[in-house]
């Protein structure tokens, strides 16, 4: 089994990806509507505060899922969950940049073995560098005994 403390020491909080995004206003609108949203801030592109919902912010994906040289854990990664922290409105159609680092690594053990949880954190900023939102992706991997 991999040494989790060693993985933390080597990989936590080191930026491993930077990617530019523009959220398409039509896509932001579709995501809001399909989510059942009714507030004009999310469903009316002409509203002065038209903004992206947390769900579409959570969909922004980094170019790499894990840092270069991160060891294989053997199992198939699963999407364990998402979290979004909103610091300021994210405007569809405007230039964004997401910088990603590994925020946490932890394990849970059960009868079927050890599960490794990897939390990638993307910090989303506008073109002036203002931090607008943070998106956490929880990746779960069932570790193979020989890994």
């Amino acid at each position, binding site marked *: 089994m991999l040494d989790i403390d060693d993985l933390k020491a080597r990989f936590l909080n080191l930026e491993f990806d930077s990617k530019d995004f523009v959220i398409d206003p039509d896509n932001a609108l579709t995501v809001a509507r399909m989510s059942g949203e009714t507030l004009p801030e999310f469903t009316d592109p002409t509203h002065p505060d038209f903004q992206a919902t947390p769900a579409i912010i959570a*969909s922004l994906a980094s170019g790499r899922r894990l840092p270069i040289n991160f060891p294989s854990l053997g199992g198939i990664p699963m999407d364990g*969950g998402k979290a979004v922290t909103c610091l300021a409105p994210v405007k569809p159609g405007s230039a964004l940049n997401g910088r990603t680092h590994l925020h946490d690594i932890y394990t849970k053990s059960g009868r079927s073995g050890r599960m490794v949880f990897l939390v990638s954190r993307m910090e989303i900023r506008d073109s002036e560098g203002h931090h607008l939102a943070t998106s956490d992706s929880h990746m779960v991997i069932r570790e193979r005994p020989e890994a």
Partner: protein
Amino acid sequence: MSSVATIDDVEFGMELVPFEPNTSLESVRAFAKAVGWGLGGRFNDHEQARKEGLPGALVPGIMAMGFLTTMIHRWAPAAIVERIDTVFRAPLLADEPCSLAATVTDIDSHTAIVELDLSVKNSANETRVFGTARVRLPKG
């Protein structure tokens, strides 16, 4: 109370009024396409999803996040969802109804912040997605 205007309207243990989310395959397809996950059968086609070893086409986990955010906005239209954290415990299937729930678990009147516990259950009443939210409300 169906709609909350300020922090003073919130009570500990209060349950948010749910709405019935649209989990139709058509809606799931549109959502998946809009977030760039429109290819493949996973969120598009029951038969194709089954060929990939899935029980059917799935509702994306972040769509469940969207339903829960909407429920908060319907409960308190002036609320700002500062953080929403969702755990995808097991898949939700497209074309199957699901139910939403949220309960107020903490209130800070000074900061006007409310904490909520969230869940999404399938038609068998099994929890598929759960989580928490931190919501800022106008002060009374």
